[in-house]
């Protein structure tokens, strides 16, 4: 059992049914939930689940709301190719938590659309004791954004 970083496959199809709206202000609400290192979150994850989610003092099931201060951006790199990309506009922070069982993944999901999954991101296993866990996002650029949709 292990978590694997991936864009969720169900999310790909849902992009073509306008299920997800990342527009700042008027779009959907996205949340970030943490998962134990023993969980199995990956491309086949279709929605948020409590199975395998961390639990402990100060942590609310479902995680925290993702700050979305910048709508997705689309940039053409040629007449036949380009990139659409999006990154949360602030770090994802869990303050005052105690999570004693090792966790190593965060699921981004759409709490406005039946908690449908967006992506799984992994990192080295962590525990937190009466402290704060912070996930800082990569720069929101065509090559480093958290979510990238690129033509080939």
């Amino acid at each position, binding site marked *: 059992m292990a978590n694997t970083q991936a864009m969720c496959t169900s999310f790909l199809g849902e992009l073509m049914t306008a299920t997800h709206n990342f527009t700042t202000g008027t779009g959907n609400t996205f949340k970030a939930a943490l998962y134990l290192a023993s969980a199995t979150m990956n491309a086949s994850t279709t929605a948020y689940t409590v199975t395998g989610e961390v639990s402990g003092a100060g942590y609310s099931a479902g995680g925290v709301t993702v700050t979305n201060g910048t709508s997705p951006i689309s940039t053409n790199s040629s007449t036949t190719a380009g990139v659409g990309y999006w990154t949360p506009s602030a770090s994802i922070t869990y303050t005052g938590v105690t999570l004693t069982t090792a966790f190593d993944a965060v699921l981004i999901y759409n709490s406005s659309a039946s908690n449908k999954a967006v992506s799984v991101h992994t990192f080295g296993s962590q525990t937190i004791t009466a402290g704060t*866990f912070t996930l*800082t996002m990569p720069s929101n650029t065509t090559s480093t954004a958290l*979510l990238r949709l*690129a033509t080939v």
Partner: protein
Amino acid sequence: MALITTTKGEMDESLLEKKEGSVDNDIEYTTWIEYWLDGELVHRSAHVALKQSVTLSAEAASLA
């Protein structure tokens, strides 16, 4: 005098043993800080900076 939130409540940092560390690889840059009291971990915080995107490749098929 800095106060640290611990499993035993707010404590003066000077009473605690402090340990720090970091991990830097292709996936993340992580820093962590721990405070110990008489061999017991009473505070641990971590800060993970993600480095990798997840990328979807899209293609429009040719009309044959």
